């Protein structure tokens, strides 16, 4: 079965079997509040790996969406959260709402060959380690050396802390 695809402004939304895949920009044209209508069994699952940009107007709508989900008793799960979104989750506490982040991208750099990589981290499997602000170990795909986490853990992982 082909997944349905719709476009809201500069955001493309693909309706997969049990989740939505968002690609593009979350701004004043994205109407993210409308995403709640796609909740199934009181759950809304969003794949955010393809969200490359969110501005202050998108943040406002995102916060409204989170607040409306809380009010409606919907559980929101965020998967594969992109780095630009993680920055907003860290910068503006209200963007987190009650959502559960199950995986997210994080910046790593190889001290040996200089390669920079955005690495997908499973927040559930690494929950204990992340709670201690310890980045999971990553091997460089280019030279096989150990990569270093390329931000301050207390800053980058702050969105995982209970609000």
């Amino acid at each position: 079965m082909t997944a349905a695809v719709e476009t809201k402004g500069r955001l493309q939304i693909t309706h997969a079997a049990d989740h939505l895949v968002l690609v593009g920009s979350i701004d004043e044209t994205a109407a993210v509040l409308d995403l709640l209508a796609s909740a199934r069994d009181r759950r809304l699952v969003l794949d955010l790996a393809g969200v490359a940009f969110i501005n202050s107007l998108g943040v406002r709508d995102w916060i409204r969406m989170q607040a409306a989900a809380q009010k409606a008793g919907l559980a929101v799960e965020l998967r594969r959260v992109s780095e630009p979104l993680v920055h907003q989750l860290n910068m503006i506490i209200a963007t987190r709402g009650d959502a559960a982040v199950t995986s997210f991208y994080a910046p790593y750099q190889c001290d040996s060959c200089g390669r920079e990589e955005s690495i997908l981290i499973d927040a559930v499997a690494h929950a204990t380690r992340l709670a201690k602000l310890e980045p999971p170990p990553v091997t460089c795909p280019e030279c096989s050396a150990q990569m270093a986490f390329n931000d301050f853990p207390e800053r980058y992982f702050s969105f995982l802390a209970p609000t």
Partner: protein
Amino acid sequence: MRASILIVHPDRKTQRTIQRILGVTGHSIEVADDFEQGTRMLANLAPSLVVVDGSAIGDAAAFFAYAHARGAEACMTLLGAAASEALPRILEATAITNLLVHPMPVLGEELVITAQKLLRGELFGVEKYLLWGTTLETHTLTHASQRADLTSMLGEHLKARGQSARVASMARLVADELISNAVHNAPVNADGEHYRRDTPRDIELALDGRHEVRLRWGCDARYVAIEVTDHFGSLDRATILHALAKSEVRESGGGAGMGISLAYRSCDHLVFNLAPGRTTEIIALVDIRYPPSERMSASSYNVFVEKP
């Protein structure tokens, strides 16, 4: 009498560092260890500029007032290593117009440019922050809808020139917020009414004549620099300082001035050049020399106001 700069800082090594840096201005440099000594010195001095230690900012208000009364054009505050802890308190004071947070060698660059702008009264132009030979791309927005395409192009352009996705993303966000501010918040009528402030951002607006907004950007291997200019000059110092201090942006994402607040938190140095009633020019610098793990959690800012 030779023009002077007064430094008030408790640390002898920092005093000497600042003394060496500001000596290039040709001004005589006077040094005090604390505000008490600085106040005594002000009785016999009329400094063009005072530079103070940010960690003692709680005691600075009376000193600043006295320095202004003695003819100091502006006050500059240095934060040093205690940046992240002291920053909220400094921002909440909404009285500091020039805050420099970075250690050497970045401090040297920020200090010299800030001092020269204040002392010479030459405020405008992103060129002052970039190395000689840097190419600047210039775009004039004649329609509000150009914002999204231009900022997207900026991000792609930076990535194509080898910058990381993170830097490109930060630059794009800053440019988007500053343009949005220039298009919707800057226009003001004779009654002081910001008549486009509540216009929905997704509605097309023609930016004719005075409404045109100019975007310039360049990169010199130290900074990605973004400059956005409007021709209303309606943004004032108090509005800026309150926007920078907004704690509710962090808590709830709410309130006016969120764009400025987000832009400040997404770059390393934000500069406001104001010509009231004529021009507002905002410059954002994203430092590309250091990986995120080596960057300060605070950012510098300047608010320069052209003299009538």
